[in-house]
């Protein structure tokens, strides 16, 4: 057993855990924040995506005890049913999901993707590495490739993200 303390959605949480506990299981099983989903549990599907220290990561592939003092934002921290995050509103408007299982991960990833583009981080499809990347449909699709949607809502997800980013798809 080990102890760890980190900030989740603005609240400091202290936990006593088996060292094997992933951040994903700490969030879901110990803090009962079940918005973050367990899909493959191997970093292949993106359903567990959360934002730690401003960066999106797969919460299934990191140990909770490695996050002492970190700030974690889950889907519950982005918005609530009464006060949805603009990305959540856009997903609803554009039918960016069907079964909804991958959606929390998609939304967390999408919010972080817009920050990554703003920060000038290039992607595999960026034409010129020495020019700030643009927010194109090709850029969004490449950057969101770590979030799999079994229902295939990809085109609507891309439209939702594009609307939030404030430029046409």
């Amino acid at each position, binding site marked *: 057993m080990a102890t760890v303390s980190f900030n989740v959605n603005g609240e400091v949480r202290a936990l006593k855990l088996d060292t094997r506990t992933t951040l994903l299981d700490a969030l879901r099983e110990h803090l009962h924040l079940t918005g973050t989903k367990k899909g493959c549990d191997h970093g292949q599907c993106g359903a567990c995506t959360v934002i730690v220290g401003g960066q*999106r990561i797969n919460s299934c592939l990191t140990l909770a*005890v490695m996050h002492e003092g970190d700030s974690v934002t889950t889907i519950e921290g982005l918005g609530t049913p009464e006060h949805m995050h603009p990305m959540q509103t856009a997903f609803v408007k554009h039918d960016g999901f069907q079964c909804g299982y991958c959606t929390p991960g998609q939304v967390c990833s999408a919010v972080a993707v817009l920050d990554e583009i703003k920060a000038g*981080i290039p992607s595999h499809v960026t034409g010129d590495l020495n020019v700030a990347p643009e927010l194109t449909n090709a850029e969004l699709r490449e950057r969101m490739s770590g979030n799999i949607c079994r229902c295939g809502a990809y085109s609507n997800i891309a439209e939702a993200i594009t609307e939030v980013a404030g430029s046409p798809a």
Partner: protein
Amino acid sequence: MKSFTYEKAHSPAAAAAAAVRTSDAKFIAGGTNLLDLMKLEIETPSRLIDVNGLGFDKVEMTPEGGLRIGALVRNTALAADERVRRDYGLLSRALLAGASGQLRNKATTAGNLLQRTRCPYFYDTNQPCNKRNPGSGCAAIGGITRQHAVIGSSDACIATHPSDMAIAMRALDATVQTVRPDGTTRDIPIADLHRLPGDTPHLETTLAAGELITSVTLPKPVGGAHIYRKVRDRASYAFALVSVGAIVQRDGTGRVAVGGIAHKPWRVEAAEAEMPHGAKAVATRLLDGAKPTRDNTFKLALVERTLAAVLTEAKG
């Protein structure tokens, strides 16, 4: 997952010394590959030494005009570094061709080099695998081998090294800095870091027990067109069937390293002399001695054609 003790390392030498005291200890940094393998009980360390606090998270100029990349620099940060984008575009391109945004935010420079093969028979613990269980045999040989090695393989193992970044590091003549359990340090040329499988495919690198990578150094920039072309079954987020990393100068000379075909980044300096004569001449030398399987003979032609596309792109 097997249970383990967890501790944070406070100095590199102490981390290396701690790792050698427990024979099945492992360093953990990004953890994206190690935890995946621990969940499957392919990796079963009894002691995890977290090296994230050691401060090797900077990219700095060297007195020689090159770059020293801290072992803990994340793949995203390295690909986005202004100097890397400007002077070592091949490295940015290779990093961005690998994994997903989420994984690149976690994965480190050293961890990327040390990641293990994605051979499905290595991952399937019901199958014999000389890499996972030395002496048990190789289920890949005679199995489904579309993804496997075509050169440098052995009767014991036909797995490939999965890294894109390592292909760029090999073409860029990187060196790897380490600290050993006795506190001494050394430089290892990237060409000498990874081993071919031979009779001991479970030994993947030339690192000694407990030896910790602290940085990776690039020599000063060599100019030229930097191109990384990766051929895979999906447009994104998939391992390479074949990848070609090249630096091509205006006179047609240059360097090339190939991924997806061997147990280590594949570069044959003698083949590079053929670069002004075109892809076929280079590929013939590069792939001399290849032993493809029925399923992956296509990789030989794919290397040549991918290289041809790269050389065409280099001409602009």
